[in-house]
């Protein structure tokens, strides 16, 4: 099992109800599988997981990427700064 830290921002944080979460996940879990797990474990997040942006250690990451051990994973909607 791998230990990871999840961070949530904006709409995703509102729906999760928390800013961050620590999680144990199977080794070799992909981003897609992580999103499916979050949608299942937290029904409030299920809809958001379709369009969420994901980062691994502060770089944008995509469905096929494998989540490394001790990763900092952030989930958030498309950005709206300026």
């Amino acid at each position, binding site marked *: 099992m791998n230990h990871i830290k999840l961070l949530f921002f904006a709409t995703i944080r509102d729906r999760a109800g928390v800013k961050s979460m620590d999680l144990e996940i199977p080794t070799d879990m992909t981003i897609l599988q992580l999103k499916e797990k979050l949608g299942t474990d937290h029904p409030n997040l299920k809809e958001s997981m379709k369009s969420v942006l994901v980062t691994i250690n502060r770089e*944008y990451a995509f469905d096929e990427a494998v989540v490394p051990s001790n990763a900092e994973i952030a989930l958030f909607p498309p950005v*709206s700064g300026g």
Partner: protein
Amino acid sequence: MKQSCRPMPKLPSSHQSAAVRLPITEHQLSMTQLPTIYSITESEIDLNDLLARITLTSTGAAAIFTGMVRGVTARGDAHETEYLEYESYVPMAEAKMKQVADEIREKWPVVEGIAIVQRIGKLYPKTPTVLIACTAAHRDTGVFDAARYGIDRLKEIVPVWKKEVGPDGQEWVEGDYIPKPGE
């Protein structure tokens, strides 16, 4: 506020020989490196301070874009705004601002100084929220395009979000850009 520097591409030979002969002091470093400022801040954006920090003796032009909270929106879905509440994933946002600055230097090597600052927190109409400034020797060097690129890129890849609060309630503003691998 973070500041990084990269070597200036072309220096007069007198500067180069001086740098070889003498011990490198902070003052000399500032003469031989291009200023790049990138920051997420909760403080007021100080244009004069930022401009001074990205102005070199060779600078003759600065293109500055700043955005502010619009209290009354007429275009599209007309509405009023009481305030915007900004938040950011700060360490990643600052890294992505650095990336935007690097991209600007890649595309416009003539750019001398770059400042990219995003203010976060609760911000009311007329308040500046973001500033992108690029300096160059002359105005016809692409420096306007460089600043335009900076704000467009910030709105694509820098993780900052705003919640809009108005008379009819509150709503997160969501962008529509999906970053590609390597961005």
